[in-house]
């Protein structure tokens, strides 16, 4: 018997006997014979723990991991430094082996940490209300589009082409099945093209969706987009980088009605794309329209402060036919990691991480341009990520860098054919000047 099954054979037989049953078979009498599986599943032979450990170590070694490389690849998933405390604390069983806080009396840890998380997201984004988190940044955008259409009772969203390509795909999926029209608008010098946006606005436009900094790393024209959206009585949805918010104007101040974003940068490892978390924040007037879970403060029978899931109908109570969202969980442990990360970095540390990223990204950019092998693509200001045009094909460039233990930038040709040779380079606080100089040196040699 497996180590994960508690009862012994003898105990199982005793239990069956006590119920007046003869064998396990008697427990499965409701399953018609024609659908019973009478042979073993075709699965690999079970591994003992030492065998499993060595098998998985071998498998992990087939992946070249960022701890052995300098990583300059971003494009939506960033290699920011994670303090040791984060994993130490989220590894406490009381956090990770618990489920949804359905019983608040024995879930105050999860509930209070979510309340703290909601507060931090409101502080970063400048919004009034944040939920307990969504699956990731992209699905948060999909849900934001649906929420906007339901809130203003219109059926079209305009999405900037400077929004992450995968996010745009997810928005498309979420919208097309609900019969919502998705129209993209273009960019000019790396920022949204305001004329193009204006020309596509119409009386059925529910929302304008932009990303800041956008996929190219460029600081986006948030305020202008908001003005256009609001003039047409549509909402502005902004997807933002949480680290950038230590420096950049909160999107709430710039006029965003719904602010979402990918929260991975906040204490969550790259993990080959997941699990991450999406944050989701709105103005107070949309408090009751926000999808997902939300935690509120209240008191107990003795007047003591405590926290509960609130406003949202829970899983079993989602209004069946009127549902505007079906999400009934959050990425609690990832949100906890983000909360602990923001606690550790705090007011000053987050700003330092953001400024280090900003400085190092600009140093890298300037040095790359000086090699003469790369040319500027946009003149607009950027944060921690930028686009340069490479003379050598990007795939060859990245291959070469890999030999020097460098994971190079994202090949923009994959998603933007109009930017041939486009190389999207991300620089966090992690790479040292020495590592950057090696990158520049190797990239300049080619």
């Amino acid at each position: 018997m497996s180590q994960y099954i508690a009862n012994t054979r003898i105990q199982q037989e005793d239990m069956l006997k006590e119920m007046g049953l003869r064998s396990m078979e008697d427990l499965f009498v409701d399953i018609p014979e024609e659908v019973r599986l009478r042979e073993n599943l075709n699965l690999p032979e079970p591994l003992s723990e030492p065998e499993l450990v060595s098998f998985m170590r071998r498998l992990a070694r087939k992946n070249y991991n960022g701890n052995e490389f300098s990583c300059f690849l971003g494009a939506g998933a960033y290699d920011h430094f994670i303090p040791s405390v984060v994993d130490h604390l989220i590894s406490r069983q009381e956090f990770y082996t618990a489920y949804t806080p359905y019983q608040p009396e024995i879930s105050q840890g999860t509930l209070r940490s979510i309340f703290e998380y909601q507060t931090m997201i409101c502080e970063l984004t400048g919004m009034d209300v944040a939920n307990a988190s969504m699956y990731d940044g992209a699905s948060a955008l999909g849900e934001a589009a649906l929420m906007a259409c339901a809130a203003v009772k219109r059926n079209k969203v305009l999405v900037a082409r400077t929004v992450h390509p995968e996010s745009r795909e997810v928005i498309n999926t979420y919208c097309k099945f609900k019969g919502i029209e998705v129209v993209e608008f273009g960019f000019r010098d790396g920022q949204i093209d305001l004329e193009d946006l204006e020309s596509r606005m119409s009386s059925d436009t529910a929302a304008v969706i932009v990303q800041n900094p956008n996929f190219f790393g460029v600081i986006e024209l948030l305020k202008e987009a908001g003005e256009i959206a609001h003039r047409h009585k549509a909402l502005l949805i902004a997807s933002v980088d949480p680290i950038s918010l230590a420096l950049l104007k909160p999107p709430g101040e710039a006029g965003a009605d719904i602010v979402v974003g990918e929260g991975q940068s906040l204490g969550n490892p790259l993990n080959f794309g997941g699990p991450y978390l999406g944050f989701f924040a709105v103005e107070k007037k949309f408090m009751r329209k926000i999808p997902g879970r939300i935690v509120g403060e209240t008191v107990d029978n003795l007047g003591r402060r405590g926290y509960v899931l609130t406003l949202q109908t829970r899983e079993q109570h989602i209004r069946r036919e009127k549902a505007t969202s079906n999400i009934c969980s959050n990425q609690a442990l990832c949100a906890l990691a983000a909360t602990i990360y923001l606690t550790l970095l705090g007011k000053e540390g987050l700003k330092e991480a953001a400024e280090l990223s900003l400085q190092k990204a600009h140093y890298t950019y300037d040095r790359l341009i000086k090699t003469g092998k790369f040319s500027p693509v946009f003149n607009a200001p950027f944060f921690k990520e930028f686009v340069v045009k490479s003379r050598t094909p990007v795939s060859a460039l990245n291959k070469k860098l890999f030999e020097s233990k460098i994971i190079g930038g994202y090949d923009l040709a994959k998603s933007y054919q109009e930017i041939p040779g486009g190389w999207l380079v991300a620089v966090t606080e992690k790479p040292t000047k020495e590592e950057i100089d090696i990158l520049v040196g190797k990239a300049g040699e080619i």
Partner: protein
Amino acid sequence: MKDNALIFEISKPGRKAYSLPDCDVPKQNVEDLIPGEYLRDTAPVLPEVSELDAVRHFTRLSQLNHGVDTGFYPLGSCTMKYNPKVNEALSRLDGFTQIHPYQDETTVQGALKLMYDMDKMLSEITGMERVTLQPAAGAHGEMTGQMIIKAYHEHRGETQRTKMVVPDAAHGTNPASAVMAGFDTIEVKSDDRGGVDIEALKSVMSNEIAGLMLTNPNTLGLFDENIKEIAKIVHQAGGILYYDGANANAILGISRPGDMGFDVVHLNLHKTFSAPHGGGGPGSGPVGVKKELVPFLPKPLVEFKEGSYYLDDDRPLSIGKVKSFYGNFNVVVKAYTYILSMGADGLRQVSEGAVLNANYIAHKLKDKYLLPFDRVCMHECVFSCQKQKNKGVSTLDIAKRLLDFGFHPPTIYFPLIVHEALMVEPTESESKESLDEFIKAMRQIDQEVDTDPQQVLEAPHNTSVGRLDETLAARKPVLRWMPKE
């Protein structure tokens, strides 16, 4: 106060809990890099604490939670089984955590192999052709599955198939997920044995039916023995049969949804395959489909050619993407190691153990608590506390009283079709001894309903907070901490 403090309330200006390197590149003025109009005027109010402050704060918070490692957690429908520690350790190897989703495929062959193998193994377990690992949770999987069904019908030109049938015993998310895919839902009643009412099902069939969403065993913990006939009715009407895998812990190696006639299946790796629930996530909700539906799966899928694995994005009929990248990869790693430790025999023993434990509890409590469907159940059993309710004590009170015994209460007031429902799912992880302790507590509570009802009505008595005022929370929402002016 301190015990109850929020992290913001223990903050002291100037205190720090981080250590970042000095800037080693020539520093420029921030305003020279980013125009002032884009910069924020005031810093966000984040905590300023020492590292030990932070560690103590979150350690204290954790102590206010009940986890599977704390004690029995028979939360019905949620499969709160043990989360093996080796899964945690192995999923934290650098080779799994420190890899970027856009790294060149040749540099992540281990990760791609893992995903490819997982697709194969979950296909085998469910009797499906292919499985996508992209959905992030059960409800996300449901939504993805519904979208696949919609895309399939539309591709065949059957755009009139806009109605999804959902039984009244279904999980609350089922109808909501169908609506996310653009379907209208039709509810069918359960029969007096707790299964789908065959006549009611027949009566709603038409060429407008896109399919039926079914959980089998259903939310009463009962296996629908008419499953083959149900499949026939749905298929004859041109519909697709959808399997909600929330209850898959009952059938591993015993029966496969594919063999029952299901066409689309979602699984919850955080329930059935031992990945932890994380306090509400991250989960993972892979979706498997039969051959005709493979073209509609989200992109990319992992394929294998000439000795190497690669991501195949060239899937013109795909519904697209429901999430960035490839799903909750690191959760998948934990389920993968679980399946590798269990093997075929082990998985069958999981379901046998889970079903045995549930039946044992039903057997030992049914003289005190009403068992509305008194027959062999699968991995969970559903009681009604109607007898106790008649004496003035509700299911909620009983659940709260269980807290005093150190148990997480079962799921309550679900399924909706049972009055005062109490849904117990013990899982195979629990020993007879822990079941007996739970049974003893439940019997004592039943006795208290007669002898000392206040004890139950005023429970819990020894938790960090008592019953919380949920009405107040909803009426006057306080959703964030505010700095004092």
